[in-house]
């Protein structure tokens, strides 16, 4: 009985038979700030995803309001120098920023995780050494500089920005997952699977990879803020998804900077949204890490 209770303790209650709603509620009660961050992010994601319905105006339509118009009942966040509605542009810009960050984090960390597992699996061999060396080399470049270089070579487009940010996220993924995979490899069930004839890829994909899931979720949630920052920074520098598509970073660098002292709302609103989203991802990442990492749970 005592053992059952002990197993049921813990934010996710992995051993209990509660429904996922109950477990989610318990996790939220345990990490209220993380829960608020999740709700804010979910709100931003849903509003952006439903942009055709939620955005009051077409983000590309010119002169829907006055040029450099102040916030009003018709245009809550004001209008830009071409008379486009800023709220609509922020909502549509959210689609790009959220898509870029989610997709690039999954691609970058996914490739990083695969390489990390391979590196651990072939520990001490030339494959391990090559992956480790490449990781060292990529870690010797600041993320933004590396992303800028990749976009400079390939050109600015949605796909290339995703590729550039994914590329920068690979090395840290390799490091974290390799260390987890090394400890998984020491388990007897790996020897058991090998003894019954499982091949290298089967062992890696079916036995090692599922046991690296918790750190994978931790690094994914911890990197979303980094990816949003990288995307908005690239857009700010003019290297993001090219105009006329609205991007949060781009809104700050174009009219946002030109009119920053006379029409402060043009730079204020998009910057505030970026800050909230990055903060949200950081707080949520911390909460998930505390919840999923058994050392921190204690």
């Amino acid at each position, binding site marked *: 009985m005592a053992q059952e209770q002990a197993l049921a303790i813990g934010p996710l209650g992995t051993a209990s038979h509660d429904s996922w709603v109950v477990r989610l509620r318990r996790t939220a009660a345990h990490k209220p700030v993380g829960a608020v961050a999740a709700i804010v992010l979910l709100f931003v994601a849903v509003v952006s995803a439903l942009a055709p319905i939620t955005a009051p105006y077409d983000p590309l339509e010119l002169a829907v309001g006055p040029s450099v118009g102040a916030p009003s009942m018709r245009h809550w966040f004001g209008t830009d120098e071409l008379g486009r509605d800023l709220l609509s542009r922020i909502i549509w810009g959210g689609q790009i920023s959220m898509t870029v960050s989610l997709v690039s984090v999954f691609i970058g960390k996914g490739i990083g995780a695969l390489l990390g597992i391979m590196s651990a699996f072939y520990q001490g061999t030339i494959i391990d050494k090559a992956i480790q060396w490449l990781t060292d080399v990529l870690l*010797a470049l*600041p993320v933004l500089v590396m992303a800028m*270089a990749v976009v400079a070579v390939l050109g600015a487009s949605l796909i290339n920005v995703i590729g550039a940010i994914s590329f920068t996220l690979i090395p840290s993924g390799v490091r974290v997952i390799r260390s987890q995979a090394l400890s998984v490899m020491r388990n007897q069930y790996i020897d058991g699977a090998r003894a019954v004839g499982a091949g290298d890829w089967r062992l890696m994909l079916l036995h090692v990879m599922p046991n690296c899931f918790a750190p994978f979720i931790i690094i994914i949630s911890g990197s979303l803020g980094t990816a949003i*920052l990288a995307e908005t920074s690239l857009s700010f520098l003019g290297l993001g998804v090219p105009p006329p598509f609205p991007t949060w970073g781009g809104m700050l660098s174009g009219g946002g900077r030109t009119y920053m002292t006379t029409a402060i709302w043009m730079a204020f609103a998009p910057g505030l949204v970026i*800050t909230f989203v990055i903060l949200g991802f950081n707080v949520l990442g911390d909460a998930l890490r505390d919840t999923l990492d058994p050392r921190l749970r204690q």
Partner: protein
Amino acid sequence: MRQYVIRRLLWGLTAVFGVATLVFLLIRVIPGDVAALALGDDAPPEAIAALREELGLNKPIYEQYVSWMVGLAQGDLGLSLRKREPVVQQLADRWPVTFELALISLVVAVAIGLPIGVLAAVKQDKPFDHVVRVLAILGIGIPEFWLGTMSIVFLALWFHYSPPLGFTEITVDPLRNIQQFMLPALVLATHQLGGIARLSRATMLEVIRQDYVRTARAKGLLEGRVIVQHALKNAMIPVITILGLQLGRLLGGTVIIENIFSLPGVGRLTAEAIFQRDYSQLQANILFFAFFFVLLNIFVDVMYGVMDPRIRFK
């Protein structure tokens, strides 16, 4: 300790060698002809051919690689495609700006972040602690480009002040130099400052509950001495770790900050090189950032070894 430093230097050398190889490959994987891209659509074919010859793109790839590496060893990375000056000369002109910006930011981040983090831990759950915790998490979340832009706006609107643009060497006019760097360095330091404050608070909370701190108190030492002499050194170790991890963000941030505050450093030169398709300059700048990053990391690692004997003897 010497062996530890040599090991880190060797790591740095192999990392820079690897980056040099990546940078070499960089302009060779560009879709299309790099010479045609650099000169634009309406360039005459003769000019494109001449540039291909100058860049050595007609030679076999292994010959290009060897001459690139030999050039790098001799400090010769070719001419800028736009300014027709050695790219190394451009870097030599610009690096002091980036170096000073990064250095002041690091100093500001540590000089403010560490004491407020320690003080917040000492005054746990008091108003000061709550304020530090909120400010630290805000500092970590606010992007530099927004904070930079907003600081210019609010200083101009509320105090009618704008930081002087450009760069004056510290030896020529120290006061003007400080005026030019103070605001950009503060903005750039915000992220590191928040991280250091947060981590030093967390570590300090752990350390001040250790037995040796209790023993120091039991001996009758003053609280200030207990904190500074007994707790702080052990609380510093994770702070140095996070400093190392955040250096990349700091250096990447110099690109943004130099563009916002019109500081003529390597970050701004990099953005210019990208827009002007000056690939020779871009290669050199990426190498510069890698070299600077590796050097700073080695410095942080050595500091780590100095603070924690377990590291240098591992």
